[in-house]
């Protein structure tokens, strides 16, 4: 694993990107110097027939707003719409207002592929913010590569992918996992781990990385590893196994509705997470999931990801209040929602750096793009299309929020094909 400080790479920060970016959340404080459309004639900024006019540019939003994934993906849609409305309020991109065509993936992977093709072929959108599950991303990937579309994908995911047509704004697995395991080893002296997860590619790949790191780098041991089908609700047998093996850490990557059953049964079985015996560390429970699980069932657990709603910095305070103003006071913001919010801003910065909406030029301009205004703090796009970002550990509280108890000092380098972890 490597943690390198964010060097001011060969490109350095694009002045335009930083300017535009810093204006993002403090728009009320000063009027940003917006770019004028007449300085960027349509014929020059759009040579490939995208949906760009003299005063508008069209982007697609492709998430599930119906079906089982709707509950997870709604936050991403809201974040993307918020970012787009803020960008428009500042004058848009290259002087053009962003118009949105939203399509529903309906939690169905063939539908995602169909709608992706529709957005790219029929609507000629300049970029797409979308997808959530790995399966939906895998379904649209060939479509984006064939029609040379550009996708901003917000979810933390398993890695093992590096498409020229995707910018991954969430963390890949090593970024999310390794720092958290190092932390629990160093501060809590943890040596034995019980890995468990829902049965699909992300938890399995993540646990594979976790196991290699525990065994080869931390000198700890894995005392058990179990998987349960998506939607599984009977965790009593694994909870009994955990009590027999007495691990220092339960490393849980349970997703979706199974979480509710898992944490309730854990509590009912007398495992008190606030006593840290054992410690519970998860990478799959954001504030959104706690709404379903209930703060009282989650209190005392640790989560490892890059963003928590409680982050105390100026960018985040402005983001949270703008989000609540647009979508209501009751709303909570999880890791993926924040990552989705970055998509439109990263695209804006890349387009302005490239001086063009052409996908090839935006792609070429993307590595090195920096956002100083991200709610999670400073982020930067890596050559491999993932983001440099900090990893944080949060302690779940009764009210459903996390207290940030640790953050990496430097940005963690994204490494979607980690050597030694395969």
């Amino acid at each position, binding site marked *: 694993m490597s943690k390198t400080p964010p060097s001011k790479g060969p490109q350095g920060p694009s002045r335009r990107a930083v300017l535009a970016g810093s204006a993002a959340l403090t728009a009320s404080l000063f009027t940003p110097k917006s770019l004028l459309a007449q300085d960027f004639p349509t014929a020059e900024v759009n040579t490939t027939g995208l949906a760009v006019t003299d005063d508008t540019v069209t982007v697609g939003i492709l998430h599930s707003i119906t079906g089982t994934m709707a509950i997870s993906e709604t936050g991403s849609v809201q974040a993307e719409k918020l970012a787009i409305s803020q960008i428009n309020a500042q004058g848009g991109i290259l002087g053009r207002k962003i118009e949105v065509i939203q399509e529903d993936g309906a939690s169905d992977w063939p539908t995602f*592929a*169909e709608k992706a093709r529709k957005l790219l072929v*029929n609507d000629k959108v300049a970029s797409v913010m979308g997808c959530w*599950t790995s*399966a939906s991303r*895998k379904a649209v990937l060939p479509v984006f590569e064939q029609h040379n579309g550009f996708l901003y994908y917000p979810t933390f995911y*398993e890695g093992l992918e590096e498409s020229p047509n995707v910018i991954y704004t969430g963390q890949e697995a090593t970024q999310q996992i390794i720092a958290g395991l190092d932390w629990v080893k160093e501060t809590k002296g943890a040596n034995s781990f019980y890995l468990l997860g829902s049965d699909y590619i992300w938890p*399995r790949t993540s646990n594979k990385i976790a196991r290699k790191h525990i065994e080869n780098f931390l000198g700890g041991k894995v005392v058990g590893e179990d998987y349960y*089908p998506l939607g599984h609700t009977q965790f009593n047998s694994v909870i009994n196994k955990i009590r027999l093996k007495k691990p220092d850490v339960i490393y849980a990557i349970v997703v979706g509705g199974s979480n509710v059953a898992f944490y309730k049964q854990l509590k009912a079985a007398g495992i008190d997470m606030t006593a840290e015996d054992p410690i519970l560390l998860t990478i799959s429970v954001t504030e959104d999931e706690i709404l379903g699980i209930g703060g009282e069932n989650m209190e005392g657990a640790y989560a490892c990801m890059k963003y928590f709603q409680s982050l105390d910095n100026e960018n985040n305070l402005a983001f949270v209040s703008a989000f609540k103003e647009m979508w209501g006071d009751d709303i909570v913001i999880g890791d993926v929602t924040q990552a989705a919010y970055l998509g439109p801003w990263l695209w804006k910065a890349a387009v302005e750096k490239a001086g063009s909406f052409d996908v090839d030029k935006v792609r070429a301009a993307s590595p090195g793009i920096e956002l100083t205004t991200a709610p999670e703090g400073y982020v930067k796009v890596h050559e491999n299309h993932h983001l440099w970002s900090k990893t944080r550990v949060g302690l779940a509280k009764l009210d459903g929020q996390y207290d940030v108890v640790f953050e990496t000092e430097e940005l963690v380098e994204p490494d979607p094909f980690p050597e030694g972890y395969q």
Partner: protein
Amino acid sequence: MTFSKNSLFTRQELIGFIVLAAIIFLLLPAVLDNFRLNLFGKYLTYAFVAVGLALCWGAGGILSLGQGVFFGLGGYCMAMFLKLEASTPENTSIQSTPGIPDFMDWNQLTELPFWWVPFHSLTIALIAVVIVPVTFALIIGVAMFRRRVGGVYFAIITQAFAAILTILIIGQQGFTGGVNGITDLRTLKGWDIRTDEAKEVLYFVNAFLLFGVLLIAQFVRKSKLGRILIAMRDQEDRVRFSGYDVASFKIFIFCLGAAFAGIGGAMFTLQVGFMSPTLVGIVPSIEMVIFCAVGGRLSILGAVYGALLVNWAKTSFSESFPELWLFGLGGLFIAVVMLFPNGLAGIWTEQIMPRITKLWAARAGAVAPIPATSTEEEGAI
């Protein structure tokens, strides 16, 4: 040309076939751009399943809520071949074990499982597209129909099979691609299936196959077998007492439906470019029954229209009203079932066709041969 009761088509059935052929081969390619045509190609793959259901359910009275299983098996057989072709050692050089499908590598498999090996051959894959679903249907059919399990119980058991197969595919992700399915399929014997021209060619291949399937279905309906099926549906015991082996007929028609579904699944994989367990499970299986019901379960042509209409409605509702479209679709189903219990085909045979026949008779004089529309249900095309 006269249309006797024994020829393959009555006149109105022939008209129905010609109209559908004109729509699929001429009208749709003429008015639709490539993207929409590809979408209709996808809808037509569901029509294979719906035609099979029209035979099993409409004619034979066997309601299967697990047709997605056969659709999926056919699709997976095709996808396995395409995935192996896409996973050349050059394309997969970044993997720990180059030359095997990417998802196997992610799951620490180091060699191709033995049952994947035959799928290097296109011939074997094409045979498997039909044989695997049929074998599966045969096993279910023999196990169920020989024991005289039927009706609701049979429907529930087929539904259970759909659930089991989904769980199996998701659980064995090293061998099947898990919940992501088998994705990123590229070429068929070196021919890139992702290009616009390829999609157009595949649309027509699909359409021809569908008409082949329709002709087989029509032949079955018109044969003695078809009449026995209907007799079985209406009075199973009488048929049994007359000395017929009811179970064998049921097994045959169930296997035939499975073969149709398997071909549809393979065409789906070719046109959409991937296969995943979401097409195997309970929800898609029930959707396929809905296509059949909307089209009119008694009519094989109705089944095709049903698959086209429902899917087209799904696409266009969801494009126009991304947040409300499911309600619109629900409304459509309720309306069809309440107002037209025999589906689209019912509207045609009960409302439109009699009028055309009357007009025809008036023009040609009283001696025009009037086709056998006598019995209310069988009159459906």
